[in-house]
């Protein structure tokens, strides 16, 4: 579709930009530093965008995938799915940030603008179909993430996080760009679908060595893998998660990872999804190994952690590993499982981070010891945290179980028994460290006499926004349907 015609379908992204600018402008106007006007404006921005996404989805979703801006991005249910997911994460992050006491009140304008900008980048990640667009959207997200991670003034940890993040990210994206250049060089085009066709032809004709494709894929994997924090591209994430402001950590662990998966799925399934290619380069097996390593490393490393944020960072690595399992299957069930799991993961992980924010505010500690006796002075918060953690472990009846279940069903269906077994044993291991937090909250007494902490109604309302889906998503048909429909646009062999 032509550029001008595309604009209508591009409304959500445009809205995001408009609101990002508006936030900055509003920040200039509002003098009261304690005012949360900018946050609310950005929330409004999210809501408007949300409405726009839904509107566009329901107005044009039936027409099937639409290619926009002369093939740069694609509008389909898959991207709509991720846009909704990302907006939820962004909105949640904005709400967290409102309550977080870490952030410098004077920098709110920039902060929220950046959040909206990063959301824009993620939108594009989820819908790009062109190498250049992919790289630019990836860079937009990365660059903004670096800034957000280093956002805390006078926090060496935050600066260190930003430094490591950008170093790591720059090398990874540089490597990816090199891989992209090879892809471009082999096929002479930047369009993913054409790349797939050309690569298959060239491989069949013997015009290119499989090694070239392998190198290209591996280099691309470096860029994508770094976004979804899969082994061996994961090492930035514990440090960055620990150093970054909690809301940003939450955001990175959910949104950034989701966007990474969107990109990963689209790239690999559209670009490398042909049978001929996979005969030369068995990337699903590579991903399977990476996936097994990722969850194992994530879970084992999480065991001895004392810092809850860091623990959740490793846990999020491990979840990346679980999700990746769905990606190696080349089936719509696998992708559907990823999408469903991402929805579940969004709620439970954000919920857990929200509790971390609350506890950090009240107790001033991110350490597990800070959670001791939480159940006695803040039972509801502790209960919610318990639900999130057990959902992350995958214990029924929480949504996490259903997510894992669908994933493992998909994996087993393709006969990856070893992978499923590794994954399941990993989830047993993971119970141990999640339960350590639960244990601290419920089984141990607070060190000194702590007064009962009373949280505002808003806090509980927000908490319940995460708790209720974490309990009920698995029981409802609609989510399965939604994630399955969203997959249908992906080319499957």
């Amino acid at each position, binding site marked *: 579709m032509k550029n001008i015609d595309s604009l209508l379908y591009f409304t959500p992204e445009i809205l995001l930009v408009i609101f990002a600018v508006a936030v900055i402008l509003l920040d200039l106007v509002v003098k009261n530093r304690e005012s949360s006007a900018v946050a609310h404006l950005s929330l409004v921005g999210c809501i408007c965008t949300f409405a726009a996404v839904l509107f566009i989805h329901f107005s044009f979703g039936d027409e099937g995938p639409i290619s926009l801006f002369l093939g740069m991005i694609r509008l389909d249910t898959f991207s709509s799915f991720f846009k909704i997911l990302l907006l939820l994460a962004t909105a949640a992050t904005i709400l967290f940030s409102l309550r977080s006491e870490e952030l410098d009140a004077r920098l709110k304008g920039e902060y929220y603008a950046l959040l909206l900008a990063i959301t824009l980048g993620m939108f594009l990640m989820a819908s790009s179909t062109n190498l250049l667009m992919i790289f630019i959207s990836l*860079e937009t997200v990365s660059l903004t993430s670096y800034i957000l991670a280093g956002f805390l003034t006078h926090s060496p940890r935050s*600066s*260190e996080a930003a430094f490591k993040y950008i*170093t790591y990210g720059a090398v990874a994206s*540089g490597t990816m760009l090199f891989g992209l250049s090879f892809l471009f060089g082999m096929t002479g085009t930047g369009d993913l679908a054409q790349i797939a066709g050309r690569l298959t032809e060239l491989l069949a004709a013997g015009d290119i060595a499989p090694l070239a494709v392998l190198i290209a894929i591996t280099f691309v994997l470096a860029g994508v893998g770094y976004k979804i924090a899969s082994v061996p591209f994961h090492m930035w994430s514990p440090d960055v998660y620990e150093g970054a402001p909690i809301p940003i950590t939450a955001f990175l662990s959910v949104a950034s990872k989701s966007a990474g998966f969107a990109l990963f799925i689209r790239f690999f399934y559209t670009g490398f999804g042909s049978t001929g290619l996979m005969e030369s380069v068995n990337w699903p097996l590579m991903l399977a190994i990476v996936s097994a390593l990722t969850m194992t490393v994530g879970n084992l490393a999480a065991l001895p952690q004392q810092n809850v944020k860091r623990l959740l960072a490793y846990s999020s690595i491990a979840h990346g590993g679980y999700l990746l399992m769905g990606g190696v299957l080349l089936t719509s069930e696998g992708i559907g499982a990823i999408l469903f799991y991402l929805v579940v993961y969004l709620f439970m992980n954000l919920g857990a981070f929200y509790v971390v924010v609350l506890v950090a505010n009240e107790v001033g500690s991110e350490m597990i010891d800070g959670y001791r006796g939480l159940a006695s002075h803040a039972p509801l918060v502790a209960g919610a945290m318990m639900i999130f953690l057990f959902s992350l472990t995958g214990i029924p009846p929480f949504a996490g179980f259903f997510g894992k279940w669908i994933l493992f069903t998909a994996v087993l269906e393709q006969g990856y028994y070893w992978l499923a077994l590794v994954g399941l044993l990993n989830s047993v291991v993971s119970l141990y460290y999640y339960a350590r937090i639960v244990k601290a909250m419920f089984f141990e007494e607070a060190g000194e006499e702590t007064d009962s902490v009373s949280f505002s109604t808003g806090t509980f309302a927000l908490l319940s926004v995460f708790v209720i889906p974490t309990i009920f998503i698995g029981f409802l048909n609609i989510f399965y349907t939604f994630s399955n429909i969203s997959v249908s646009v992906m080319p499957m062999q």
Partner: protein
Amino acid sequence: MTLQHYLVISAILFTLGIFAVLTRRNAISILMGIELILNSCNLNFAAFSRFMTPSEDISGQIIAIFGIVLAAAEAAVFLAIILAIYREFGSIRPDEVDTLKG
């Protein structure tokens, strides 16, 4: 001047960039390494654009231009962060910025 010439040059640049990133214990040197890597990518794009696509198709060149722009943006942020690090840690040696670990 075949395509392979350019590719070899670019591969060398890339490898040198990697080498710099891995071995130079100075944040700015790492940035230089990254610039080398990005340059090699851009060179690749330009070369492929010349050799692998019809001569009127210059999309490879344009990608390279975007690459340069992105490199600039990245460098700006990187340097800002290096300055922040320098303030907080009094050093830009990456091995001394290691409070987060384990």
